[in-house]
């Protein structure tokens, strides 16, 4: 069972308490953007096999959103951090690189 620590309330929650919210750090495009930008913001996803940055909601706990870095191939959780973080924290990236030397790095 997947366990994620909610950075908002500090609870180590199992997945039945949480809702997955898809890929994190998407750059928003709205009115005035090109069709390509809008399509890719709405639909295109990295769908990575390996390191994945994603949004989660502590729905049956504090109710708040947060972000997580996780390996979709092993289910290893690298860490969680607040939803207000525009890009993954540097120390988290460094920790992932250490564990996954082949990883190409964070890409939007």
């Amino acid at each position: 069972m997947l366990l994620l620590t909610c950075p908002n309330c500090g609870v180590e929650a199992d997945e039945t308490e949480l809702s997955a919210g898809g890929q994190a750090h998407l750059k928003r495009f709205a009115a005035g953007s090109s069709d390509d930008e809008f399509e890719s913001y709405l639909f295109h996803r990295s769908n990575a096999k390996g390191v994945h940055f994603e949004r989660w909601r502590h729905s049956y706990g504090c109710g708040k959103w947060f972000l997580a870095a996780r390996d979709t191939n092993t289910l290893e959780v690298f860490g969680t951090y607040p939803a207000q973080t525009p890009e993954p924290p540097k120390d988290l990236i460094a920790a992932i690189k250490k564990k996954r030397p082949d990883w190409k790095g964070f890409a939007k």
Partner: protein
Amino acid sequence: MKRYSAFAIAREAVRYHQGWERAWASPVPKKEYDVIIVGAGGHGLATAFYLGKNFGITNVAIIEKGWLGGGNTGRNTTIIRSNYLQDPSAAIYEKARSLYETMSQDLNYNVMFSPRGVMMLAQTEHEVRGYKRTAHANALQGVKTEFITPGKVKYLCPIIEVNGPRFPVLGALWQARGGTARHDAVAWGYARACSDMGMDIIQQCEVTGITQAKGQVTGVETSKGAIKCKKLAMVVAGHCGVLAEKAGFRLPVESVALQALVSEPIKPCMDVVVMANTVHGYMSQSDKGEMVIGGGTDGFNNYTQRGSFHHIEETVRALVETFPMISRLKMLRQWGGIVDVTGDRSPILSKTPLGNCFINCGWGTGGFKAIPGSGWAMAETIAKGEPGALAAPFGLDRFKEGRFIDESVAAGVAH
């Protein structure tokens, strides 16, 4: 290829079954093919089959990283139906369903297609209205379905509790010509027919790179070396995002785990397929007597082919509520597959940003039923370089244009 027949069984019986041939060859890859298909699941194999049968293109390789049919094709619960809502879906799923009817004869391979009928229970007012709408849409599409009463539900499947405490059965969408087929046999039958046409099925060979020049694919890198091709088709279901990344583009798809389980075998007790979308579970009985059970996908991106335990719990709870008599059955096996889910729950059969590269994916939780129709449409797209009438609505361009084929109702439960 020697034909399978009653006569062949008799012939082999008198010579101690020494004369059966291998069903397909395991060749060493050639340097170049007219068409390379990545992925020897049902969709990849059916695409190859119709390339040969409908277009005479047989210089084809089907490259598979594991064993053929070892992906979702060999992991699914084999429900076949075509009672979708939108016209493009009805067209391709009904084409597939009708091809299933003659598949055993067409392939000379018994795929055990069993049109036993598929029933989708309506357990809320909302569902009643939704399914009535689908039944009307199906009537216009020429797909025979009907909305039936709780009495008829009980008559067709006596083990259902129609007066359940939470969600009594209010009716059902019934497709008498839907059913099930033997999943492995579908892959094996196509593989045998493709091999017989001279195509190369290359197993235990992973495509690791896609070589390109001037916006065209020139070949693939594999664990067995580089192989050139004139056209490439990616038919890898849950791994479509991984392969697309290698080709340099992204897809509107996310991969999640979907699970299924089977019980210990019991005496025949239901001869239809029942899906209960509100409580979220579905069940049928295999020829061996096991109850074949499926439910929902996990919510998060996942490539582990396992799935989470609490989903089994939810599914089993839903089914015990619907079929109280199964409450003391023991479950024998559980497994998962990685399904490729799109935003509108409809598949992608499409050209790609690379000129001679085509993609077939996004069948998500419900593509077993579509295998022959999808192969038929995909072969046409590859052979002509442009999609025909069946495939055209399912292009990638629909996401840019907002022209969705919304099947989130018809596919409310994974199946």
